[in-house]
């Protein structure tokens, strides 16, 4: 991904190769629990797209120099600021077509892992253009899967599409349950893997000239294999190994002593 990256390239990468639901496996909870009908999938995907785009831009513009432990709650706060008005609108108008499950899961999009992953991986490390492209591409990729899942589950499970009765001879109630969605997503992921070229042939990393330095004390949320330290250890979840040892010593576990390891 270079400076002259086109939106089509970003779309291919963010929506297909690194599809947030099928490849990155983030945001599964809302799609499994709440996308039982097409309308619910539309609402859910709209909320996710809006939130992803807005938070990514805010993270890119305002949060680059903040430590990670401050950034994460800020994502939550901004997400809630976006979702809360929608929730109040739902409550005020008591939309009869929106199920209780949808009302429960919509606030959870505020702390969506899709948002956290893309803000931490791209937004705080890249320029604004790349951030917007990535957020839009991931939103489109996620939306496509949300809508497809919602449509298929509604058609097979309720014999309706967007509330319109289709009168299919057989309905599979299992498709409206989480296991039906998981199986469907599993087949979709397998199909996507089948049609995509092998990952080795595609450039996957953001070039170093596009990545800006983070504050020294902070580490990335997700540690790729190639970012392991020279001594073979890795900073898991942003915790340094020495810090971890110190913490364990405070709770009475000494990893270096034989007694401690035996325990």
């Amino acid at each position, binding site marked *: 991904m270079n400076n002259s990256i086109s939106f089509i390239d970003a779309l291919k990468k963010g929506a297909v190769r690194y599809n947030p639901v099928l490849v990155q496996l983030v945001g599964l909870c809302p799609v499994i629990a709440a996308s039982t009908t097409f309308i619910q999938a539309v609402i859910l995907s709209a909320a996710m797209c809006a939130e992803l785009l807005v938070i990514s831009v805010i993270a890119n513009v305002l949060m680059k120099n903040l430590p990670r432990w401050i950034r994460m709650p800020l994502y939550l706060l901004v997400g809630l600021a976006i979702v809360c008005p929608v929730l109040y609108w739902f409550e005020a108008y008591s939309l009869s077509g929106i199920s209780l499950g949808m009302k429960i899961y919509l606030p959870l999009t505020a702390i969506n892992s899709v948002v956290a992953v893309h803000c931490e991986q791209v937004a705080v490390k890249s320029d604004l253009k790349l951030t917007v492209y990535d957020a839009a591409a991931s939103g489109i990729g996620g939306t496509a899967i949300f809508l497809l899942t919602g449509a298929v589950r509604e058609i097979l499970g309720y014999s309706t599409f967007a509330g319109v009765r289709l009168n299919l001879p057989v*309905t*599979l*109630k299992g498709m409206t*349950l989480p296991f039906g969605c998981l199986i469907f997503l599993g087949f979709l992921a397998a199909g996507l893997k089948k049609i995509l070229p092998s990952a080795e042939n595609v450039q996957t990393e953001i070039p170093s000239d596009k990545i800006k330095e983070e504050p020294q004390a902070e580490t990335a949320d997700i540690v790729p294999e190639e970012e392991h330290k020279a001594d073979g250890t890795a900073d898991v979840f942003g915790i340094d190994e020495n810090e971890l040892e110190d913490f364990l010593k405070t709770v009475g576990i000494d990893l270096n002593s034989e007694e401690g390891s035996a325990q």
Partner: protein
Amino acid sequence: MANGAEKLNKSSTRSIYGDYLLMLTVPCFTAYWYYGVRSLLVVAASVASAVITDMLAGIVINKKINTGDPGSIFTGAAIAMMMPSGIPYYVPVFASVFAVAVVKVPFGGSLKAPFVPAAAGFAFASVCFSDKVFDYTAGLRGSLFGATSLGSMLMSGRAVYIGESSVYDIVGGNVAGPMGTGCALLMVACAFYLLIRRPKALVSSVSFIAVCVLMVALFPRVTASFRTNLVSELCSGSLLFAAVFFVTDPVTQPEKIINKIIYGAVCGAICMAMRLLGAYEEPVCFAVLLANAFRPILDSAINNIPQFGKKASRKEVRAE
């Protein structure tokens, strides 16, 4: 790959599923005896859909087309046996397609599936078509309690008086229920055949039945004698069928004897707990699937106990 299947190869698979298919002819005969030709048509539809799905899946994943895999035939026939005879044909067809396309093929075939495909297929049908899968009103005439199955009577807590003649009817399968699993006597005969052919496989079944009996004694569902409760529970639904055909499945069953015993016991405990508390009349397939899912954890937990672990690890313990 499931541990139990590591030593299996294609020829032994044919031999194993050959045994199971031979045993399945017995419940097929029962179904034909009580329910007539329609039961055989249901079996044919179920088996055909399983075999065709297997072949189509082979085409889709660019593998050798598997014609007449005994594992698929067994899956289709076993699903049909647990259905009522009056079931619409599409129900066993969907169940077989699900079992083969979702549980068998994606994991690499009969030898690698971590769950019993037939149990998964029936569980899927139970969830999707519960009103049809447990509807025994069609088919059986002159049965002991009419169209009321033992399972539904136990679920509703209705006490049943079982006299001497009633016991013969019940263990002979002359009650409303799944078309091929009702005759307890023939299930015992199948178990004896398995005892001769593969005695170790029955260890899980014995512990499964033992725990079921224990649970009946501790938590009877109807206010009647222990004998009445025991006969009703064991002969209702597909409990004995699952004990003989699913719990003994060589692919999903653990290898070590102690693991087999605990696996069967866990399966029986889950089954009876679900019968007591669950919403479905016959939850034995869900219990088998849950036991399948817990089996790797059970295996590792038991192997971590020094007495039951590997010899090498015991030596290591002594050396330390």
